[in-house]
């Protein structure tokens, strides 16, 4: 990939994180480039989720730094990460069951007026948000049974698609997906994988956490393997090195 030659959009340097006695991240380096899917692999407790939460502003790093387009940034809250252009699709989706897809899309960053008022006191532009959300869903070929129904009434795959689509609306640099297909059937998974491909095509750096090696080989341009808080491998996943990848994850190098 030519992307690896270019400057990374996201770089994490020497990331350290402790939770009491647990040393969760032990000096991890990571780079993500525009237009690539980076798979983050590792067994449970390897540090994937912690690393991702540090990038998306849920946790703060004890040591190390995060660079966006080469500049060190301090990401101290999820909102700050969003403002910096990092979108995260959490495993629990972070959808509001009582709101419609469009309301979910814009929750926390509503299109509203007049601009001179603080955001909370502005009036909602419901039509504009409906229109924009419909356009995004259309562009991503996500079809929903009802656009004006609360997402509580939608299936697992539809909800996942809404969460991913929401990330695409606002993602300007990095999209992080935590186990996006874990709860889905085969065909719903397929749809979500297509969406991920589309995110990459639109020039985002996509960081994908998954346990599904098939998906990694099919979609990922690069894979980073973590074990016990350290980076133990970085390679381009193919069918040929699948076994090597699995060995790295479980820690049984042959």
């Amino acid at each position: 990939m030519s992307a690896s030659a270019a400057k990374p959009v996201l770089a994490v340097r020497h990331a350290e994180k402790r939770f009491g006695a647990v040393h969760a991240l032990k000096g991890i380096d990571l780079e993500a480039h525009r237009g690539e899917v980076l798979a983050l692999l590792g067994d449970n407790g390897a540090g994937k989720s912690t690393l991702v939460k540090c990038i998306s502003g849920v946790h703060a790093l004890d040591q190390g730094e995060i660079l966006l387009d080469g500049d060190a940034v301090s990401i101290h809250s999820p909102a700050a990460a969003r403002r910096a252009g990092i979108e995260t699709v959490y495993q629990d989706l972070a959808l509001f069951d009582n709101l419609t897809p469009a309301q979910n899309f814009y929750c926390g960053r509503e299109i509203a007026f007049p601009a001179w008022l603080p955001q909370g006191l502005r009036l909602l532009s419901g039509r504009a948000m409906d229109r924009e959300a419909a356009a995004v869903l259309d562009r991503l070929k996500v079809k929903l049974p009802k656009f004006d129904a609360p997402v509580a009434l939608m299936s697992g795959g539809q909800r996942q698609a809404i969460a991913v689509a929401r990330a695409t609306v606002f993602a300007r640099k990095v999209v992080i997906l935590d186990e996006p297909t874990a709860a889905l059937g085969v065909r719903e998974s397929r749809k979500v994988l297509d969406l991920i491909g589309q995110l990459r095509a639109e020039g985002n750096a996509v960081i994908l956490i998954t346990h599904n090696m098939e998906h990694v080989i099919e979609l990922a341009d690069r894979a980073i393997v973590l074990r016990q808080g350290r980076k133990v491998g970085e390679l381009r996943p193919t069918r040929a090195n699948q076994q090597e990848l699995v060995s790295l994850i479980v820690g049984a190098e042959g």
Partner: protein
Amino acid sequence: MANIVGEQPGTGSGAAAGQATGGATLVSWALRLLGVGPLLILILLAAVIGLLTPDFLKPGNLGNIVAQTAVIAIVAVGQHLVILTRGIDLSVGANLALATVIGGLVFRQVDSALLVMLAMILSGAAVGAVNGIAYVFGRLPHPFIITLATLSICRGLALEFAVGHTTMRGMPEAIAAIGGSSTIGIPNSFFVVLGVALLALVMTKAMVWGRWIYAVGGQPEAAVQMGIPVKGVLISTYIISGLCAGIGAVVLAGRTEASSPLYGNLLELDTIAAVIIGGASFLGGRGHIGHALVGAVMIGVIRNALNLLGVDVFFQMIAIGLIIVAAVEADVLRNRLEASARVMQAARAQ
């Protein structure tokens, strides 16, 4: 039918699709019916009572109902906002009592309707602020505890300030007019309810802040992740609830031309009942101002009708209790229907 993203392999036969579609239609109709159910029941109730006792529909009696329901309705609007965020405000009744007493004390010093009104409303809002701030920054597990505490504190303060009087007579004329007089045959308190409800409606449905209230109630963790100022939203709902209690105090003190530390007894139960009976979800995130109003009117109508029919007052309490059980059961039913709608979405063929 519209295409959907999700579908499971092997359910592609036309018959299965038709069945699922029929089921989904049925479920969505049932959900819609549950949504307007309380209003339908209220209309039906009024019609039946009207047939049983012709006195019920006379303008004088309807005016009575409005006057008696106004305080519950106003305070229920605030309670509704708190319940939307999965909270509860048990202090509203005692808060209202304290507000009337403080208003009464101010009235002893100056005969100014404006100052007395301001004192009552500010007192209410201040108690609400204490509730919200203690709940959020005290990291309390549930607002039940802090509002139970302020219930006790407010009632105690009200008794203390009233220095041995159970009632303090007198209110400025303008406040008496707000609570007791009528304009073109409609009690003035009705217009207060209307104003409070309209303001709340604009805030919850048209303003970003209102959307955040629904978001915080729908999924608190997600609200944090989406960068919504959850603490501020929570505190604001308790302040507004206290504010509504203060406005309720103005109306009640005006109607009775008095203030009393014993006012608002069990008002917290009436307002919670109104919100739930009206059809808002006790689980948070669902419902609108109309639900609180319908619920308040329903309580007023039932009390009034049972009075007219000469039914024992104890039975009134039992009846309202039973209706609360039915309303909560309807809420549970709605959640189950939504779950089955979700399953049908997943199973429906393209």
